[in-house]
């Protein structure tokens, strides 16, 4: 094919030709027959369960508000608890950490170009928010990246200190990921004065004679939380045989294909949301397809039970590398944790290693070039795997914290 010709035109033409085939006649009948026996979900359930969809900048499906309300409900409950603790501990901490008026969520509205700040002229184009918490913590996002600071207020002075090593990509923060976040952090480092003017938070540098950054109260602002960096997800409808009392800042969750013993917690910011994420799996009738084909399945024939047996079996399952093994305790259950790097799968068997349950058809996959962090727990005699898969060449810069956070409150029914 002459590649100088328009590939786009060729694709469009090919699509048009390929799509000419009609759908099977039985398909329509099958759909209408199935739907005629169903009733649509109640609106409130649909709004809550299904991910919102925007079209032409308008919400056309779902309700972020409703979801947010559910989250806020939990957050407020937490706040009440924290407030109770604060009152109880007041005698130990006689002075408040911060002035209350800076509390809340603020969205960057304008940046005044000043000395050394020329690049920041574009920052207003992105959704930049900072939430000031009562505990002296700030959580915010620059585009799709989350960051955190601590802050202290003394009169009109304010002092910022970064509390993370680097901004973390987020699936929940709105905005693009290609923003020049460094400029923003450089700017914040220069700020040392604050004021509330006309309902706006104005931050400036004491050397400058004009406000540097002006923030408007965010439309999504909520009651200040003691842990503003974390969104609490109500998981009461999570029909898994375990409960997660975790703060999932970066992850979302869903049951996977209605399979009872496999739950997948997806990573919404990932380029491949189907695979990066956290999988919970109960081991039963395990097998492995060393090169991705079920015909080559090796059965689960461990020499014993529990996490150690699983690890020994996995070592022989395929061309993978297993990192140092550490003892862990998660949710009150002992187990092992190790990283599995699959760097020879493409070369040796053309793709992926599929660890599966023969009945039902569950499992997880090790993909070539990826690293997965596996936690194998002994839960009352059953082996439970928690697999965190991450495609990033540097394993787990984003998911590790979330996974640890998730596991902190894990308990099994």
């Amino acid at each position, binding site marked *: *094919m002459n*590649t100088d010709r328009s*590939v*786009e035109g*060729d*694709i*469009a033409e*090919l*699509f*048009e030709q*390929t*799509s000419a*085939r*009609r*759908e*099977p006649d039985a*398909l*329509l009948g*099958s*759909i*209408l027959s*199935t*739907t*005629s026996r*169903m*009733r*649509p*979900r109640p*609106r409130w359930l*649909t*709004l809550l369960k*299904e*991910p919102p*969809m*925007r*079209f*032409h900048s*308008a*919400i*056309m*499906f*779902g309700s972020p508000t409703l979801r947010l309300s559910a989250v806020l409900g939990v957050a407020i409950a937490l706040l009440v608890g924290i407030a109770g603790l604060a009152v109880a501990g007041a005698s130990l901490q006689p002075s408040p950490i911060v002035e209350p008026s800076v509390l809340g969520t603020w969205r960057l509205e304008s940046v005044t170009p000043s000395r050394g700040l020329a690049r920041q002229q574009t920052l207003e184009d992105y959704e930049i928010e900072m939430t000031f918490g009562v505990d002296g913590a700030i959580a915010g996002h620059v585009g*799709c990246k989350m960051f955190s600071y601590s802050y202290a207020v003394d009169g009109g002075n304010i002092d910022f200190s970064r509390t993370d090593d680097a901004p973390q990509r987020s699936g929940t923060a709105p*905005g*693009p*990921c290609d923003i020049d976040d460094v400029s923003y952090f450089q700017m914040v480092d220069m700020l040392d004065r604050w004021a509330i003017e006309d309902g706006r938070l104005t931050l400036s540098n004491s050397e400058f004679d004009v406000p540097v950054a002006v923030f408007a109260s965010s439309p999504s602002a909520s009651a200040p939380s003691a842990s503003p960096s974390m969104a609490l997800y109500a998981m009461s409808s999570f029909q898994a045989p375990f409960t997660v009392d975790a703060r999932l800042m970066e992850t979302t969750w869903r049951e996977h*294909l209605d399979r009872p013993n496999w739950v997948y917690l997806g990573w919404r910011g990932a*380029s*491949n949301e*189907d695979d990066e994420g956290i999988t919970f799996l109960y081991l039963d009738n395990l097998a492995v397809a060393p090169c*991705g*084909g*079920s*015909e080559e399945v090796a059965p689960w024939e461990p020499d014993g039970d529990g996490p150690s047996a699983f690890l020994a079996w996995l070592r022989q399952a395929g061309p993978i590398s297993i990192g140092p093994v550490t003892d862990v305790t998660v949710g009150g259950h002992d187990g092992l944790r190790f990283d599995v790097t699959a760097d020879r799968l493409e070369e040796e068997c053309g793709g*992926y290693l*599929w660890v*599966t349950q023969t009945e039902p*058809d569950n*499992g997880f*996959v090790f993909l070539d070039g990826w690293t997965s962090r596996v936690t194998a727990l002994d839960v009352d005699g059953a082996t439970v795997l928690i697999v965190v898969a991450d495609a990033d060449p540097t394993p787990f810069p984003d998911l590790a914290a979330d996974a640890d956070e998730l596991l902190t409150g894990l308990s099994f029914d």
Partner: protein
Amino acid sequence: VQREVVLQAIAGDHDAFASLVKGSISRQFAIARLILRDGDRAQDAVQDALVSAWRDIRGLRDPEAWDAWLYRLTVRACYRSARKERHRTRVELHVLSDPEPFTPFDVSADVAERDRLDRRLGDLPLDQRSVMVLHFYLDLPLTDAADILGIPVGTAKSRLHRGLATLREALRAEPETIPTLAKERTA
């Protein structure tokens, strides 16, 4: 007119929903088939998407956006199907092409070119192919395609750009040959 029918369907009128499905199923099937490149799986994905549409129709706020919403459900169903498929046995058949260069003005050249492009499209990652289907087949602007896919416009652009670059590179690297079948046809 469609708006009224969508409103009736939202109100729970299954006949109205059936009418909407009849009007859109061909296009949904075409999208699924182009994304998944498999008629059987496309059929399953369309069924999955349209059943979801009925189940969740009360959440649709804007009746005008019925088509876009349906596209989204279909694309999501395709992703689910692709994921399931990858976890099953796959037997991939590669058509070996004849290394002999084709003759200019050969009437089979167009067929061969289309075949080459088709195979290369099949090699693209699903997310890149999905953007292409929405953009080139449905003729949607990338902003709309991004909305449907639930990704930032920049991501849609980069997926499209990467996909096109991969195709160009692959087509450039592959010798211009015609499959044996095509050659025999002209012999």
